[in-house]
């Protein structure tokens, strides 16, 4: 038998998701955002989800659509504001969705920590601000630092450029962003890639996410470009 993490369709990779799951979504804005996997998540009709992502979606596709379908209970992100953010904004203003704001670097590090077996770390980021309220402060070398805790998930939905059958991933340019650390921090990491590489052709120096952090991979060779789709008025479902 050979290890094979490649699955035939978005539906196949999404089969384990459940109501109330904590789900990380890769991407920074539209770059690296797993739009087709999010649409698969919408199709599962799972609800009460907690979403961990950098943003809170745009328009009515991808995360914007998921939120619009009322499947999301809470968003943990650094930046939920954007001109095209419509679905989150409406629910937030009507107190129908929770928001935990986390500084972007702290968000990335909390996710990495979960993947690295580090339950907490100290950072100067947010000391003296409302985002440090209620958190433990500790002094190192005369300076104040705040304790931040690991952030893990049941699932991570990831967009990458290539994968081999082991789940070894490469990314495209700044679509890398949160994806590699999220791969490390979820019980099940689900990936959409533009194309499959034969393992003989993967350069071991160039793999960004080793397959040990990946569970399921499926191919979406021509993924939606979010900003163009929104400008064209596309929506999902």
């Amino acid at each position, binding site marked *: 038998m050979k290890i094979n993490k490649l699955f035939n369709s978005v539906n196949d990779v999404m089969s384990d998701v459940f109501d109330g799951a904590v789900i990380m979504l890769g991407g920074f804005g*539209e770059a690296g955002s797993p739009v087709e996997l999010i649409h698969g998540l919408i199709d599962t009709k799972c609800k009460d989800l907690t979403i961990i992502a950098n943003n809170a979606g745009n328009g009515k596709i991808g995360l914007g659509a998921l939120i619009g379908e009322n499947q999301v209970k809470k968003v943990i992100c650094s930046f939920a504001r954007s001109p095209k953010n419509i679905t989150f904004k409406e629910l937030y203003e009507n107190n129908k969705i929770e928001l935990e704001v986390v*500084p972007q*670097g702290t968000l990335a590090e909390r996710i990495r920590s979960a993947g690295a077996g580090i339950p907490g770390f100290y950072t*100067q*980021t947010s000391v*003296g601000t409302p985002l440090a309220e209620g958190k433990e402060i500790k002094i190192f070398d005369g300076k104040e630092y705040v304790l931040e805790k690991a952030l893990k998930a049941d699932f991570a939905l990831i967009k990458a450029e290539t994968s081999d059958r082991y789940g070894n991933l490469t990314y495209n340019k700044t679509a890398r962003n949160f994806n590699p650390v999220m791969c490390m921090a979820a019980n099940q990491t689900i990936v959409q890639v533009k194309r499959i590489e034969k393992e003989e052709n993967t350069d071991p120096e160039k793999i960004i996410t080793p397959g040990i952090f990946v569970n399921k991979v499926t191919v979406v060779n021509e993924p939606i470009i979010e900003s163009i789709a929104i400008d064209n008025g596309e929506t999902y479902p």
Partner: protein
Amino acid sequence: MNEFINLGWTKDEIAKKIANEFPHGSYVNLGIGMPELVSKFVDENKEIIYHSENGLLGMGPPANENELDFELINAGKKPVTILPGGSYCHHADSFSMIRGGHIDYCVLGAMEVSQGGDLANWTTGKGIPAVGGAMDLVVGAKNVFVMSQHTTKDGSPKLLKNCSLPLTGKSVVTRVYSNLAILDVTPDGFKLKEIYEKIDFDFLQKVTEAKIIFN
């Protein structure tokens, strides 16, 4: 007092003053909006490397139509380019550059700055609170430059004894570049470094809540 908003240096002139401050070889992170202007005015005989916190070091100019790639964007989510010698990294690595003190200068906008160097620039307390990378940048960068109009649109002072808005960081600002003055944040408060040629000390003090040290 809202007539003063158009007084003083233009945004380009402020940008140029900031650009002139960077030593050759500096690593710089420019905030979204007004700070992005700075890169236009960097002298040709020095080389500056731009960091964008979404995992891009060695950022080039905005992408033109032929170069457009929605997976090569800056922290403002606009398509950009990468220069030779540039590199990509993931978010935890990118913020290690910031938090670990490897960025020489960051330039950000401000809603309020206190004389102790406190910065408020992420939320007015209304609407959706959204912080992005600002809190990491202000504690991590070696020099934190604020680039801002000297007063709010309705003429109220932005340079205060104490900030009234929720803070982005405490005692973090190194220097303020406004349309009316360049002010260093010192242990004793704001200290004048340069004043717009057509105003005097009294005028500057009048539009500044915090006390300015003029000598």
